[in-house]
Each structure stands twice: as C-alpha cells, then as structure tokens.
C-alpha cells in the first residue's frame, strides 16, 4: 500500500501540478487531430497525473479519489472503441468504417471526424485506466512481502 507523503513541499506542489497535468492530458487528447498527440499520449499523461496523485496523497485519500474511481473502469475504453466499430456495422458498412456511423446531418468526412474523436477517447480511457491499474498492482504490498519473495513462494 502506498502511504501519503510527509513533506509539505511535495503535497503543495502536487496540488498545483496534478490539475495542470490533467488539463494538458485532455488538451493533447482533443488536439490530436490537428497536431502531435492523440488518444494514446493523452491517456498516458492522464494516467501519469493520477499516479502522481496516488504517490503524493495515498490511494485512500480524498484527493486521489478520481484515481481510485478510475480503477473500476477496466475495459471501458476498449468497449467504447469496439462500440464505435459496431455502430458502423449496424449502419450497414464494414467494422470501423466511419462512413456508416448513423449520425443525421453529417456528411461522410464529418462522420469520419467524429469516429476518430470517439475512438481516440476510447484509447485514452483504456490507456489511462491500465496505467493506474498497473501502478496500483505494482505497489500493492499488504504484508511487507517483496515481489521476489512472492515469486519464490
């Protein structure tokens, strides 16, 4: 289990840095169609900010409640991605062919735009949840048992 950090400098800086990092993650996610970035990088930045919250405040603290809530979303991003693909199937086209996304009032190119944005959100959710999940898995250490002793039995 990760215990909250004692230093007041670390906690204060954490309060300042974490929201900025999360905002930057969202920016990278939605800006991915116009510049470098996209779902994967945005998701990793969001994961890094939440891991930072866990490391600074501890997993059970109210300040990192988003990070512990996120852990319940395992597989949600994958579902979003596959759901967009499935909607193309329902619309009468091929899997992940965004031309057949049934969105009224949009031409083919705009449907592709929406499809790319939705799948990017899916990738970002998947990467962010997996990043936090791996970090929590790596730091779960209930009985003071090290990883090597677990492997040795």
């Amino acid at each position, binding site marked *: 289990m990760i215990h909250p950090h004692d230093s007041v400098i670390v906690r204060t800086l954490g309060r300042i840095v974490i929201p900025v990092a999360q905002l930057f993650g969202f920016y990278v996610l939605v800006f991915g169609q116009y510049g*470098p970035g*996209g779902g994967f990088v945005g998701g990793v930045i969001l994961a890094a900010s939440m891991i930072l919250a866990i490391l600074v405040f501890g997993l059970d603290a109210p300040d990192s409640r988003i990070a512990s809530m996120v852990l319940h979303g395992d597989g949600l991003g994958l579902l979003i991605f596959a759901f967009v693909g499935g909607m193309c199937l329902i619309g009468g086209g091929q899997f992940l062919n965004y031309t057949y996304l049934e969105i009224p009032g949009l031409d083919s190119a705009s449907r592709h735009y929406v499809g*790319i944005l939705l*799948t990017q959100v899916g990738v970002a959710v*998947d990467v962010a949840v997996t990043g936090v999940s791996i970090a929590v898995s790596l730091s779960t250490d209930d009985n003071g048992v090290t990883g090597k002793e677990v492997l040795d039995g």
Partner: protein
Amino acid sequence: MTFELPLLILLVMTAAGALLVKDLISAVFILGSYSFTLALVWALLGAVDVAFVEAVVGAGLATVFFLLTLFRASVKDTQIRRSPVPLVAVVGLPLLAILLLYGAGDLPAFGDPASPASTHIAPTYIDNSVSQTRTPNVVTAVLMDYRALDTLVETIVIFTAGIACALILRNNDK
C-alpha cells in the same frame, strides 16, 4: 542539422551508462534520460508524434513503473553483480554492427521522395486525409481511421497487460 552529432554522442553515452552502472535505480534514471534524448532525435527527424510518445512513455511512465518495481524488491536485489562478457559477444556484436552499417549504405536517403516507403500508399493518405476525414494530422488519420483495426488490437494488448499485472501482482485473499 548541427544537433545531430551531439545528440548521437549523448544517446550512446546514456545507453552505455544505463548498461554499465551498478545500481539499478540509477540505471532507471539514466534510461529515462536516454528516452528523452531519443525523443529529441525523433523530433529532429520530423516524427513529432513518435517523439511525443517516446517522451511521455519512455521517459515518464516506464520510469515510474521501473521505480515502483524496484521499491517492491529488497535492497540487495537492486545491486547487480556482473559476470564477465562471453567471447562470442565480444567478437560477434562488432561483426553484426559492421554488417548492419554495410547494409545501411544501401538505404534510400533521409526524406527521399522517390523511396519505396514514400511512393507506395503514403501519398494516398497525405492527399485524402483532409478531404475524407477532416483531420489535418495524417498520423492520427492513419492510426484511427485507415488502420483503425490495428489500433483496436493494440488497445486490446494494453488492456491485457493491465489485466495480467492485476492477476499476478494483486493479493486476492481479502
């Protein structure tokens, strides 16, 4: 293009340092600086998306995962005892390097518009990305639209990695 040589020297130095240093925690940090130098190289070559991923994953998230793993291990496991390098590596690896450098002489020049990689399907993506998907960043259009199925399977790989880590590492007794 005056940055190429210093970046190359820095890259080789950080890579060698990460291999040679005795303490694994120091090796992790040197590996992070190696990733950041590599990201600068990608940015210099114009591959900004790759540079972004390298900086965020290689220098950021991977470093955190390595450190969390090392904090789980006991102190004596973070020090490495090196055995002498086997003779086959001393002789074989320079030979392999010479072979690869010899082969690299026949590669097309950097940015050559007549190279096979630039003439096959890439022009189609570059020409049609904006009109077909309204996405100016061609890399995103290729990843998320033209090659979306590949990206879906990559997402499944990431999901599987998270599930496998949770299954192996988390204590399920409570």
